[in-house]
């Protein structure tokens, strides 16, 4: 896609070490926000102020509340994570609500960020929003080449609109708005609800239950779909890198490499072993599998970060299970 650039990314300065920057993170209390808070504690630079807000600070579906909470902090940079998210089965039921909620939140945040002349705004897309009918591996530029999978049309289109807004705001107003695209995210402080969660937290919770109740584990679907999973702490480090260094107007995938893609069946085996579950495992093939694969190319990411080392999946799951068991009472279930 060819667009006139009003702002050449090469002209944008990276952080000047002693220039003060205020980074506002919306959706700051979610899974990724949680990981970011912990990583920032260790990696924060002296010139950086990091502020994490969540829905208690303001309802971003309302333009006035959005303006109030953002203008309170007058950030120079914004990491926009706030979103209605959920696993596939909930998406199918609530396509309309997810679409409208995200559309409101995103239009409001973008408008205010433009009005107060934020220097950079990074929002988060997701690989599930890419076309369903596509060749693999998926590259960043394929985003608009077809309709997304029907199970998440509301979520997918609301996220695709972030990409559209990035381009339009850049073209008309010269705003430095861009997006990063993680693959399936997992980690502590996720939503572990049995009905509505994504596959890893859903499994972890199910196994926990089955262990306690001494029942067989029933996994929805055939176990055949393939996924690249990224641990929340790894994504947090990549997002911090992006807010400091990444200025390309094109989106970038953040993911483990293609070779580290695993099947749901393999994932189940890891969760079962790390949880110490000894019971039977059964696959309920009457339940939908969702997309069979969504393999993304990490070529672009590796161009910038050839040596970044991801947490091995077994280790990430082990840590997530440990967090879940320690925080069971207060976890989102």
């Amino acid at each position, binding site marked *: 896609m060819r667009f006139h650039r009003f702002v050449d990314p090469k002209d944008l300065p990276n952080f000047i070490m002693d220039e003060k920057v205020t980074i506002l993170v919306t959706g700051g209390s979610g899974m990724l926000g949680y990981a970011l808070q912990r990583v920032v504690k260790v990696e924060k630079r002296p010139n950086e102020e990091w502020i994490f807000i969540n829905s208690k600070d303001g309802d971003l579906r309302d333009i006035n509340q959005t303006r109030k909470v953002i203008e309170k902090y007058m950030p120079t940079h914004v990491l926009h994570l706030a979103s209605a998210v959920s696993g596939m089965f909930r998406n199918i039921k609530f396509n309309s609500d997810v679409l409208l909620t995200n*559309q409101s939140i995103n239009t409001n945040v973008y408008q205010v960020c433009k009005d107060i002349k934020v220097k950079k705004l990074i929002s988060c897309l997701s690989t599930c929003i890419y076309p369903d009918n596509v060749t693999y591996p998926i590259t960043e530029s394929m985003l608009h080449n077809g*309709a997304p999978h029907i199970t998440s049309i509301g979520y997918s289109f609301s996220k695709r609109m972030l990409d*559209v807004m990035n381009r339009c705001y850049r073209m008309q107003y010269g705003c430095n708005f861009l997006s990063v695209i993680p693959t399936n995210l997992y980690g502590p402080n996720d939503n572990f609800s049995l009905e509505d969660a994504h596959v890893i937290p859903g499994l972890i919770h199910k196994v926990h239950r089955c262990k306690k109740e001494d029942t067989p584990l029933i996994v929805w679907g055939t176990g055949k779909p393939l996924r690249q999973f990224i641990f929340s702490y790894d994504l947090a480090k990549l997002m911090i890198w992006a807010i400091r260094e990444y200025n390309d107007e094109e989106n970038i995938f953040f993911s483990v490499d293609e070779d580290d893609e695993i099947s749901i069946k393999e994932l189940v085996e890891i969760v079962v072993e790390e949880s110490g579950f000894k019971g039977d495992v059964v696959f309920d093939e009457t339940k939908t599998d969702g997309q069979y694969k969504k393999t993304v190319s990490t070529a672009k990411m590796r161009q910038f970060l050839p040596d970044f080392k991801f947490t091995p999946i077994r280790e990430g799951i082990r840590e997530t299970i440990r967090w879940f068991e320690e925080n069971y009472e207060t976890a989102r279930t």
Partner: protein
Amino acid sequence: MNGISKHKVILVTGGSGLVGQAIKKVSEEENRSDEKWIFLASKDADLRDLEETRAIFKEYKPTHVVHLAAMVGGLYKHLKVNCDFLIFNVRINDNVLQCCKEMGVKKVVSCLSTCIFPDDTTYPINETMIHDGPPHDSNFGYSYAKRMIVVMNRAYNMQYGCRFTSVIPTNIYGPNDNFSVEDGHVMPGLIHKGYLAKHKNIPFTVCGTGTPRRQFIYSIDLAKLIMWTLREYDEIDPIILSVDKEDEVSVQEVAEMVKEAFDLKDEVQYDSSKSDGQIKKTASNSKLRKYLPDYKFTPLRQGIKETAEWLEAHYETARK
């Protein structure tokens, strides 16, 4: 209670525009006793604001809505303010559909455009192709805002059973258009230029090479077809409303018809330094023809003549 459920209160947003006024004319001529038509304009409510939108819906309590309100403009305006086209239209559409759902509106017909289809495509375009690729750069913002109507119609139907649908007209023309030479669409722009050539003795110059091809639909025909869609068309998926493929014409042919309508003597000039926009957007109306095989469209020459006469009679007050 008998009979009340059959009575329709039909709210038309964007009612003062090109299509809205055509629907007003046709509905007044038809004068059906079971239909009450209300035409809204931006002075009645700023639909970019949710509370204003809610207030107007609560005031009129529509059972049906024809949603035409949008920020629209020709090629050159889109190149200038792509972002505004996106944001304003997204806000308007979100608010209107949300209020329709809240008020239990029985049927909504929204208006899209063939310019929202993928740029890289095979022809003719049909309704199933909307999401098969990105739209033309020149109206990226507008196109996505309109595409989202299709997505929302499907999502609202999936989750709430709402009956929201949409029509996709090709290039519309007729009285009450925006005749601005800078910001208007190709047909009204040409008609205005024809007027200026006749009355101000300015050469009749067409922007671009004149080679792009379009299917033009007269606003009165579109009005009748939208009213049919509201009353009879039961699908959630959109329907293209267009003249047949064989009636596609080039901008050059249109310029010649405008020259004829104003009885101009000098040759038409072409400024090929100006952008042409999309070279073609040929749309298939087979779906429409399945439902209405015998519908007769107003011939282009006649529609242009009538529009030119309207502009002559209303030049002072016309939008330009």
